[in-house]
């Protein structure tokens, strides 16, 4: 039925994480409704806003890293391009920071 979507395991894992995140946020919201507050971000945000901003920032960090990986290898005289796991860890740290202090 879903063969036309040409699924791959990493993409399936990615969307499962997104779905779990949405379910988790909904349950959290029901248990403890969010309060809009102002952190280091220039606007007052709710929990959902911070998740959205954090995920968007994470996507841009990963994309930026992929775009610059060739140049980074050249600048740092690396034998091969740096692993994207580096940007993944950085992006998750940024996501956590925005969720916590944004």
């Amino acid at each position, binding site marked *: 039925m879903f063969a036309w979507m*040409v699924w791959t395991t990493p993409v399936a894992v990615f969307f499962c994480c997104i779905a779990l995140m949405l379910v988790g946020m909904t349950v959290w*919201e029901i248990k403890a*409704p969010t309060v809009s507050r102002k952190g280091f971000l220039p606007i007052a945000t709710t929990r959902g806003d911070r998740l959205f901003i954090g995920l968007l920032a994470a996507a841009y960090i990963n994309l930026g890293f*992929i*775009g610059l990986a060739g140049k980074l290898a050249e600048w740092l005289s690396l034998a091969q391009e740096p692993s994207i796991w580096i940007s993944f860890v950085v992006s998750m740290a940024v996501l956590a920071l925005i969720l916590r202090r944004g």
Partner: protein
Amino acid sequence: MKPINQKAWWLVLPVVICVAFSAVLPLMTVVNYSVQDIISPERRVFVGTEWFAAVMRDEELHAALWRQLTFSLAVLAVEIPLGIALALSMPARGWRASLVLVLVALSLLIPWNVVGTIWQIYGRADIGLLGAALAWLGVDYSYTGDATDAWITVLAMDVWHWTPLVALLCYAGLRSIPDAYYQAARIDGASRLAVFRYIQLPKLRGVLMIAVLLRFMDSFMIYTEPFVLTGGGPGNATTFLSQYLTQKAVGQFDLGPAAAFSLIYFLIILLLCFILYNWMQRVGTADREGAGHE
């Protein structure tokens, strides 16, 4: 601070289901395409982030992105002030108001490809009114041969097609301002400019936000009109993002890079709309707070 009640979100559930079917599933497919080299549905190879890397390092894409951003900002810079000016000069009531409304709305009723064809003929020096008039004035104009002429023609075409939308939105906004505001301004002896700055412009904020977002997103995704008018040329002068994407996906059938590019395109639109929306919300809040202190 009082917690926000979020229960009303359940009311949007039917829309969420429709959107899931029409947008989320296709989007998931695009994500799947973006990490694979699809030779045929049975023969596909997982390539990880390779297509993203190729797209991110594509010089032609960078050029198309800059062209697109410049075009969208130019569209906003021309259409928003022009739309406001047009709305301010339109008659408020009577048969003239109805007539002007119909005339202004005319260009909005024309399909995109027809708009492209109209301008294609309009700009020709041999049979088009604009081209012939410019040739008669001695202006060296050719939207098929000169990159700047082509770019300006596409911009003029978009302004011609879509400024009425901004004007109609602003007109509706202006008509919703109660007369009491104008009466108070008259008593205070406010100038025409002061009435615009302190009454009309703040009251137009809501419709302007819609106009800016609509025009930005629409112009950022522009495809049909430049495709019909210039075909993206001369050279790549009017090849905007969606045309570049179509060339990749349909022209060269590079589904992987096209999918990766679509996702980057999606992220750019998401970020820019988020910034624009928040910026305009913030301007509105500052206005309300300013009014509260006065």
